[in-house]
Structures are given as structure tokens and as C-alpha cells.
């Protein structure tokens, strides 16, 4: 058990982040916290990709003489894009939340539901 933890700690970290993020996303009544949960969830995924690229003893993927073995550059590129996507999503979400707040004066999901369905 401990060995598994030791050799795969990155995956445990990923799982933990995913779990925390999803929990916040579902359970928190505060809209901002929901968005934070969404971010944590995404961060877990980003981390998962990054650790995929890892190779023991690998070099940065910049080709020079006698370089190899390299860390896989692909996941980094992907995640760079994914991060940008994530940032834009967060921004949009926050913009929406501000609009909701100015209109309804609350960020509480339950209260919002009451107002919303009236």
C-alpha cells in the first residue's frame, strides 16, 4: 500500500484534486465556490496530463547533441491550450456571476432557485 502510494503519488494527488473539485462543484451552494471547485477539478486534469509526460531521467524536449531520453512535449502543449480554455471559462463564469449578483443580490444557489422559479 505504502509502496503504491510512493510510486504513484502523482495519481493520488490527481484523484484527490478531482474529488475535491467535483465535491465542491456539486455540494457548495455558493456560486463562486462552485467555480473554484470547477477550477480545482480542471487543475486535477491538467496535472494528470503533465505527469503523463514524465520520464525518469528525461531531459527537457529541446533537441541538442546526445540529448535523449526526452520528456514528452505533447502533453505540455495540450495543457497549455487547455489552461487558456480554463481561464476563459472561469472568466465567463465570473462575469455571469457578477451579473446574477447585481440582479438578484445573492450568490446562494438555493435562494436563487426560489427567486428564479417565482
Amino acid at each position, binding site marked *: 500500500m505504502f509502496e503504491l502510494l510512493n510510486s504513484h503519488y502523482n495519481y493520488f494527488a490527481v484523484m484527490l484534486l478531482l474529488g475535491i473539485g467535483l465535491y465542491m462543484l456539486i455540494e457548495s451552494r455558493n456560486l463562486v465556490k462552485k467555480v473554484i471547485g470547477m477550477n480545482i477539478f480542471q487543475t486535477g486534469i491538467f496535472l494528470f496530463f503533465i505527469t*503523463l509526460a514524465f520520464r525518469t531521467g528525461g531531459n527537457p524536449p529541446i533537441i541538442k547533441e546526445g540529448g535523449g531520453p526526452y520528456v514528452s512535449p505533447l502533453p505540455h502543449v495540450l495543457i497549455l491550450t487547455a489552461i487558456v480554455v480554463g481561464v476563459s471559462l472561469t472568466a465567463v463564469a465570473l462575469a455571469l456571476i457578477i451579473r446574477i449578483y447585481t440582479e438578484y443580490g445573492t450568490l446562494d444557489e438555493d435562494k436563487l432557485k426560489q427567486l428564479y422559479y417565482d
Partner: protein
Amino acid sequence: MIEQIPVLLVVLPIVGGAIPLVASLVSDRAGWPVATLTLVGQTGLAGLLAWTVSTSGTVSYAVGGFAAPYGIELVVDGLSGAVALLVAVISLGVLAYARKAGPHSGPFYGLYLLLVAGLTGMTVTGDVFNLYVFLEITGLAAYGLVASGRDASAAVAALKYLIIGTVGASLYLLGVGYLLAATGTLNMADLATKIGEMAAYDSTLVLTAFGLMVGGLTVKVALFPLHTWQPDAYANAPDTVSAFISALVSTVSAYALARLLFSVFTVEFLTAVPVARWALVGLACVSIVAGSALAVSQDSVQRMLAYSSVSQFGLVVAGFAIATPLAVVGATVHLLGHAVMKGGLFAATGVIERKTGATTVNGYAGMGSRVPVSAFAFAVLSLAMVGVPPAVGFVGKWYIVLGAVNAENWAVVAVLLASTLLTLAYFARLVERLYFAEATIHSKPDEAPVTDGSGQAVSFGMIAVVVIAAALAVALTAAVPELQAMLEDTLPPLLNQ
């Protein structure tokens, strides 16, 4: 030139989308002409592309000249050609509606075109990660568009849509990670050969990837029980946006699901892992039944239509999951037909609301004589959706049922056949109200509750869109043999036959 079209299809709307932003600083009305011009070009290109594909087969394109497994590849076959054309045509059609119905701001058209770019990108891409990027562009634009409603409830709906949609897309991304770990590639064609070779079909990695990717996409398709964002988003968005996203966003996501099934995991995977197929078929069947049941219990017409989508996409996904050539043709026909019908229905609800203020099932009572043309189009579209022949809704169903019978999947056949009655249950109610009930709303037609100052709430273009959609819902049947030929040219390699 022709081989450049796939990339042009994506770039053109992005470029077009940037212009209204600048133009809106000068004139408030500049957005519409620019968008129209762009989409006319887009439609022309998509038509040319579909024609090329149907005459000379699949077109593939390496962005930046990097060859397939390393660079991003765009692939257009019969299936994606048809969907790309659909996206172009419908977005052009909805524009005709938007001219009067608004919103009129420049940024709106920027987002609109961005959504077109995202949808087209999802359609033509041949790379699973690229698909994710376009999925998110589509999502971002869709969230923005939903929120462009004047009412703040639109923002609540958009936020809900955003959070659920993001989780869906993130799950998909996680699945891509698993595939990458299993095979080291992201190109769809490359993945199709490497799954099964490098990683067994029933290995944990591949299975998890399948579960995550398909699960993520079903959120976007809005299958039951992952549909909860959809009714709010459709009902609270402005009419233009409802018509647009109800016609296209779920449609293209369902297309992406099909692409994933056939071009990435392949039918061999479905055969090797029957549980995957059963899970998908089961989900689809539950969606058909539950969507209809929820639709019946709705009071608001737009929400009813949204739940109807849940049910209809169950039908489409069932067709894809059965994965015999006939079922796939049927699912594609229903995919395209549903887009036209649902878009038309939402457009019609917009017209009816503007003219009479009616938004609920009860409010629709007696409106058949108040808005004769739109109500008639609405009735025709409803019947087409129910699957009354010879409308296109019937043809799709016919093929899917035929495929299910060929696969000897009797339970599914029963659900598919019953879906007609389930659909009838909620549409017949509306049509009955429209024509055979005493009106409950008595305001005069031209004192419409929604006007923009010009006195007339509804333009000729808006009604034309509704009528054309109704006509197309019937006329598309004639195009089915053509579509079938196009699909049969490109499907066999996908279906391994």
C-alpha cells in the same frame, strides 16, 4: 483550392467574427451584414465541400503541412460533410430570423460566428484533442449567447450550462489523457489502428477512456440524466439563440459522439466490448422514455421542446450505438432532420410569442386562427417530429428501426416504435390546443408584448424561416437517398464492412 476548404470553413467565421467587434465601435447595425456575408460564403464553401466529398470521396487536410499523426489533421467524409453543410445552412437561416428578432449588438454577432467556427471545427477535425478545443470554443460561445438574453435568468441558465458543460468537456479531456497514455497519439485514424494493437479493447485504459469521453459528450448531447442544463438554457435564451443552439449544439455533439464511436474506438471495439454498446443503447433508451415523460409534464412550450430534444437525441444515439450501416444512416438522417425541425419549432415559438404573448401550452389555445401561418408550420413540424410520413422524422426512424431489427435487438425496437407514441403524447396536446380550443389570451395581435419600437413584432424573414423549416422537414425526405449514397461511400471503412 477545393482541398483547402476544410480549414477555410473554420477560419472564415473566425475572421468574420472579428470584424463585427471592430465595426460595432462605428455602427451598431454593422454586425448583421457582416455575419450574413460571412455565412453566405460559408454555406457556399460547405456546399462545395459536400459536393466534392460525395463525388470524389473523403478530403483530408494537414494544418501547417505537418503530416497526419503529428500535425493536426482535418478530415471531411460523407458524415462530416453533411453536418458541416447543415451547420452553415442553419446558421444562415437563423440569421434571417435574427435580423428582426435581435439581439443586435456587434459582440453578439462576433459570438455567433465564433459558435459557427467552433461547431464547424468540431465537425471537420480529425484529432481528438483538437476536438476538445473546438468543443470548448463552442461551449464558450454558447454560454455567452445564452447569457445575451435581456433577462437575468438567462445568466443563471448560462452559468448552470457552463458548469455542467465544463464538467462534461473536462471528463472528455480526461478520457483523451487516458487514450494518450494508452497509445501515445491523438490523431483519430491513428488511434483507430492503435487501439486494439497497442492496448487491448478491454484493457482498463481503453475502457476508462471510452467511459470518460462518451460520458463527457453525452453531457453535451444532453442525454438523460445529464440533460439538466438544457431546458433552462433553451427556455431562457433569446429566441434567436434558442433556435440556433437547439438546432446545432447538441447535434454537433452527437456527431462528435458518432465520430468517436466509428473513427476512434471503431465498431470492432463495440463488438469486442458488448457492455459498452449495451450501456450506450440503454442510456439512449432511458433517454427516449424519460425525455418524453418530462416533456409531457411541462407547461412551458420551450421547456417541452427542450425535453423533447432529450428524447430525440436518445433516438439518434441509439441509432449510432446499434452501428449497423442502416442504423447509422437513420441516425444521421434523424440528426440532420431533428436540427431542422427543432430549430424551426423554436423559431415558431418565438414568432408566436411575439405576436400573441403565448408561451405556455395553455396559452397556445386557439392560436391557430391568430397566427395561421406560423401555427400551421408549427403543426407540420410537430407532426414531422412525431414521425408522420413522409416527413423526414419518419425516414430517420424507419432506418434506425430497420437497423435495430437487423441487429435483432427487440427491446430497442420496441422502445423506438413506442417513441412515436411518446412523442405524439406531447405534440398532439399542443396541436390540439392550437386549433381546437378556446383562446385564453385575448390581446390584439399587433399590441404584441415584445416589440422593438418599429411597431411590428415579427418580420417577414422570421416567418419565412419558420415556413422554410417546415417545408424542409418534409422536403428533406427527397434528399435522403442522396445522403444515403454519400454515407455509404464513406461509412463502410468506418463500419469495417
